[in-house]
């Protein structure tokens, strides 16, 4: 399970998101880190500091690309300029797999720069899967789609979120980036049992797992990536690992970012769960 065709048959352990405030520490101290996840769009530029830093990181670390603006779920076609730049970056990083979100975010050439929830319909699943396949064919790298956290649901939906996720990945024959914090956030916002979600996911398609912290408000939870991971999310993670097997795991921390040591220590809490025996074999 850890190594499968959706993560390029790799066996990566625990990774940390590469963030600007940590550049200096990483390049100077060279901490031992399993791998770094980069936000692809931050490096899809023609030159300058972003690419120079990335090249230094690539000399010493394994890097996996995570995107935020492919918008597989948008009704319009994939953006060719975006794809061309993404492919150039894929060649540069040699990422064994690539991830982006199961969401929409643009319409009629206007971009929201947000990960907007999909209407869970068969039509949307078909269209989304077609775009995932098209992107994979062009980029020539395995793709895994991430479940997003959401704050709204549509009347139009014909199935649950996890049924929709399965429908898309089966049709696209792609992997899943399973974000257990997002499952928790959405389960609280939409009143479903997060374990129903986890139990429905096809274990053999999980290429990678995300964990993160969030912010709790009176009437909803917001996926802010600015806190440590809370216990209920660690419990979900433990359950996910027991179902899926030890899988490449990444801690996201994007706002009010503490020191690299603190972020890395939080990520390494996943070690004890990764060492536990799996319940299910592929």
């Amino acid at each position, binding site marked *: 399970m850890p190594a499968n065709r959706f993560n390029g048959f790799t066996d990566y352990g625990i990774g940390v998101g590469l963030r600007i405030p940590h550049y200096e520490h990483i390049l100077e101290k060279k901490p031992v880190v399993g791998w770094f996840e980069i936000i692809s769009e931050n490096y899809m530029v023609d030159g300058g500091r972003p690419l120079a830093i990335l090249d230094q990181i690539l000399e010493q670390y394994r890097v996996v690309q995570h995107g935020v603006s492919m918008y597989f779920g948008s009704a319009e076609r994939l953006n060719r300029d975006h794809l061309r730049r993404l492919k150039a970056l894929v060649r540069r990083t040699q990422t064994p797999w690539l991830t982006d979100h199961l969401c929409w975010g643009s319409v009629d050439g206007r*971009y929201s*720069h*947000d990960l907007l929830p999909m209407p869970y319909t068969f039509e949307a699943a078909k269209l989304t899967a077609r775009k995932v396949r098209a992107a994979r064919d062009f980029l020539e790298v395995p793709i895994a789609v991430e479940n997003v956290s959401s704050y709204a649901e*549509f*009347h139009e939906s014909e199935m649950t979120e996890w049924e929709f996720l399965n429908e898309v990945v089966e049709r696209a024959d792609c992997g899943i980036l399973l974000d257990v914090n997002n499952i928790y956030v959405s389960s609280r916002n939409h009143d479903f049992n997060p374990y129903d979600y986890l139990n429905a996911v096809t274990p053999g398609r999980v290429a990678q797992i995300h964990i993160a912290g969030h912010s709790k408000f009176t009437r*909803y939870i917001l996926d802010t990536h600015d806190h440590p991971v809370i216990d209920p999310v660690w419990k979900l993670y433990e359950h996910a690992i027991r179902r899926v097997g030890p899988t490449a795991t990444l801690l996201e921390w994007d706002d009010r970012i503490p020191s690299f040591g603190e972020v890395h220590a939080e990520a390494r809490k996943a070690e004890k769960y990764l060492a536990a025996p799996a319940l299910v074999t592929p």
Partner: protein
Amino acid sequence: MAADLMRRMAPGDRLAPETTAAYIKPNNRLTSRERLEIYTKSYWYRLLDSLYEDFPGLRAVLGQRAFARLAEAYLADKPSASWTLRNLGGRLEDWLRAHPDFAGQRLLLALDMIRLEWAHIEAFDGGVSPVLGPEDLLELGPHLRMGLQPYIRLVELSYPVDDLRIKVNSASCEHGAASNAVLKRKTGGLVRRIARLDREHIFLAVHRLDFTVYYRRLEPEEYAVLAALRAGRPVGRAVAAVSQASLARVETWFAAWAEMGWLCKG
């Protein structure tokens, strides 16, 4: 269906309550509208934040309130048309020309600052070509072609906004380190400086060195030669218009440009 729904839900649009309710389910804590508002509010925060970070000089020129009015109107009129927020301000100069009221008396100053700050963004992550080496200059002659590094931006301005932008930067760098009283004094000084700023025709190269963006003032003829090289003219034609008085300086200019790695194959 998906396209229709997405079009109606496009952030930034003002939806009638009944339209929102027709698409979005309420729950026992939030109405349909409140659920949608979580997205619309974060849309506006995200985009306004992005403009706020990209145009600190324009904020200083207009003041916070006028800047906020301008940013909201600009985004409503020209929503992001790019997959990256980096390009969000790319149409701001043209937009402000068409909507001059948003800058009031400071229109020219604001336009200059926008041009400088956009050039700054482009110089930061613009492409780089192989630098011309001594072997490339062996055949130095009037027909030799050489280009200017793609990341360099040449800008002609009516106000010395380069100095102003550097002052704005240093004031914001000290934010956090300085006490409130010191900061207030510095901000007040900046406001007075803007109010007294006299027009001055300047020529700039916005470039980068060791991944940091710099503004270098150019002599008018130096600017003209660089602009000609950027336009693809051979060296001989690029320097043809240089006056007799400045000819002696041409060699110095080229030496300085080569030193900074500005020249590449044409």
